[in-house]
């Protein structure tokens, strides 16, 4: 079965007066129809940028300098803005970590939702409002008829996120890019939001790319997990394999941290100090890696398969997997 989404060697730079900064350094991943993939990593690893790049939302000073994004057999990077506009919101949809900021503050959510409905289907305004009510019901907002007339500042953070999800799923997209959907929400609400998304995505048989800093969330709601570090994927595996046999030193560190933070519901935080991304001359994790050896500094490792469905970007992967070294 052909993959729904295939990202190949994607490179993205951010241009500053002092020179370009590499943000995505050759990212590659695949997503099958109906599959859910979790992308984890710390702040600044490039996860949000990845989601936005897939939809072609980047503007200068951000620049795509290499790679391809194949969606349903077509390279999205070759598509014009007009063609992308037809795909956005209809085939691929996006949610955001800051829902309230991404809603039009001077427009009622009914109007905003109806706009989204009418963006990709020829229906009357009346019909659009009716669909909006249906969507609000589907995302679990009580009194949807009343809520149509509310403004974003009158809604709680959780409700705003539900509205954003409603907008995203208005046209039953084939792929939902969920960018940290539970950022800033407390535990119970987060759980509800994630359950809701999971249910809806399954109902539409859509694929889900869930970007998160929380390994626990990914474990629960995704089938596969990809770990991002310094703008590249360093490990990919299905969830059971990952949690049993994660190999990359960074993945192991994440797992340990997640276990420790489980009760505090804290994601992974960035290490202190700056990391320069971009060199192809050495492995990006060298500064923090307890297993780094001379060979690690010679060359950037490739994402090699370790076993079926499990790939790792580390030259010592085999050693770690066999238990010859302790991480």
């Amino acid at each position: 079965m052909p993959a729904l989404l295939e990202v190949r060697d994607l490179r993205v730079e951010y241009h500053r007066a002092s020179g370009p900064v590499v943000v995505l350094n050759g990212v590659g991943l695949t997503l099958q129809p109906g599959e859910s993939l979790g992308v984890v990593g710390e702040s600044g690893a490039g996860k949000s940028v990845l989601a936005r790049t897939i939809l072609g939302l980047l503007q200068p000073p951000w620049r795509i300098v290499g790679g391809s994004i194949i969606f349903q057999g077509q390279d999205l990077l070759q598509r014009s803005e007009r063609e992308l506009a037809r795909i956005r919101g209809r085939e691929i949809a996006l949610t955001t970590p800051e829902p309230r900021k991404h809603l039009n503050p001077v427009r009622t959510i009914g109007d905003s939702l109806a706009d989204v409905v009418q963006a990709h289907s020829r229906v009357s305004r009346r019909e659009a409002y009716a669909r909006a009510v249906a969507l609000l019901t589907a995302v679990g907002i009580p009194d949807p008829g009343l809520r149509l007339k509310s403004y974003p500042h009158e809604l709680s953070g959780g409700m705003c996120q539900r509205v954003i999800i409603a907008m995203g799923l208005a046209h039953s997209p084939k792929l939902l890019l969920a960018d940290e959907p539970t950022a800033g929400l407390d535990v119970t609400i987060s759980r509800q939001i994630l359950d809701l998304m999971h249910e809806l995505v399954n109902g539409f048989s859509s694929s889900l790319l869930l970007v998160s800093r929380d390994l626990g969330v990914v474990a629960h709601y995704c089938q596969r997990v990809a770990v991002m570090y310094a703008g590249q994927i360093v490990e990919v595996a299905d969830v059971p394999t990952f949690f049993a046999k994660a190999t990359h030193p960074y993945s192991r560190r994440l797992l340990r941290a997640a276990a420790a933070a489980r009760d505090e519901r804290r994601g992974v935080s960035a290490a202190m100090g700056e990391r320069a991304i971009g060199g192809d001359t050495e492995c990006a994790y060298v500064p923090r890696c307890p297993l780094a050896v001379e060979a690690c500094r010679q060359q950037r490792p490739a994402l090699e398969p370790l076993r079926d469905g499990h790939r790792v970007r580390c030259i010592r992967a085999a050693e770690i997997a066999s238990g010859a070294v302790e991480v």
Partner: protein
Amino acid sequence: MRFLKYSAKRLALVVPQLLAVSIIVFFLVRLLPGDPAFLIAGQFATKERIADVRAQLGLDKPLYEQYLIYMRNVLHGDFGTSWRSSKPVVKDIAQRLPGTIELVVLSALLSILIGVPIGVLSAVRGKGLANKALFVYGMLAGSIPDFWLGLIFIFVFFSLLQWLPGPIGQLDPTVETPPTVTGMIVVDAALARDWEAFRSAVLHLALPVATLTVVYMSLIIKNVRSTVEEMIKSEFVEHARALGLSPLTRLRYALQNSLPPVVTVVGILVWFLLGGAVLVETVFAWGGLGQYAVEAVVNSDYAPLQAFVLLAAVFTMLVFLLVDLAYFMVDPRIRG
């Protein structure tokens, strides 16, 4: 209903402000070195007249009583007498006010009608030669004196090209003034279907209005441009793009959100125009309130000056009140 509540609250705020303004204006006269009665009565006043004024103002009474007397007079429409014209100030003001209103209202309208679209276009288009030109215009307009620009316009369009009439007031002296309805010659001429007077009045309006508009429209353009630009880059417009909404819809979103700050800028524009009108009226011998105030200053005629300052402040507060109310109608976040 919420609007009425808000209006009531806002109006209630105005009252103490009005009081404070009146106190300040009252004290302005007390700034004068010397005997206020003598100064207000004027240079040619007789001893009896001075005594009259002293009694009128209650200058022998304690200060707060003087203030009360002053307020009572003002509320009855008595702003004193101009010793230069020997007429009650109220009459002078009534005669001259329409001319100033014409100037300020027309300039404000033109600045908005021309400035807003330019600002929006400039924000949408982004970089480019036109934008650089606008930036230069903005900087220049804020730096040159408006009265000087008026003189330049007069030189170019009157002395040189002879397209427009000279700075001799609102109407050609050979043309008869239309019967007074509003006091604004353009309006009155149109009402009386006196097209000769209408044409003359419009021609005379052209240069002063152009002067004020060229200088103060830059304010509108700058503000509209930066607001709309900010809105276009905002997160909710970006998200609309992520959902595939058309560029036109996104522009609508940006413009809707730009309305509240622009409404505020309109208030500031009027505030500036009031100051600019004083100088421009002087240059064009307009015969309006601004010129009246200047003449009062030059001739040490204090009653009219005091009245003018009070009126200017009250008018400004009114404008700010209207701006606040409009803002309330236009921004749902204030309502909630």
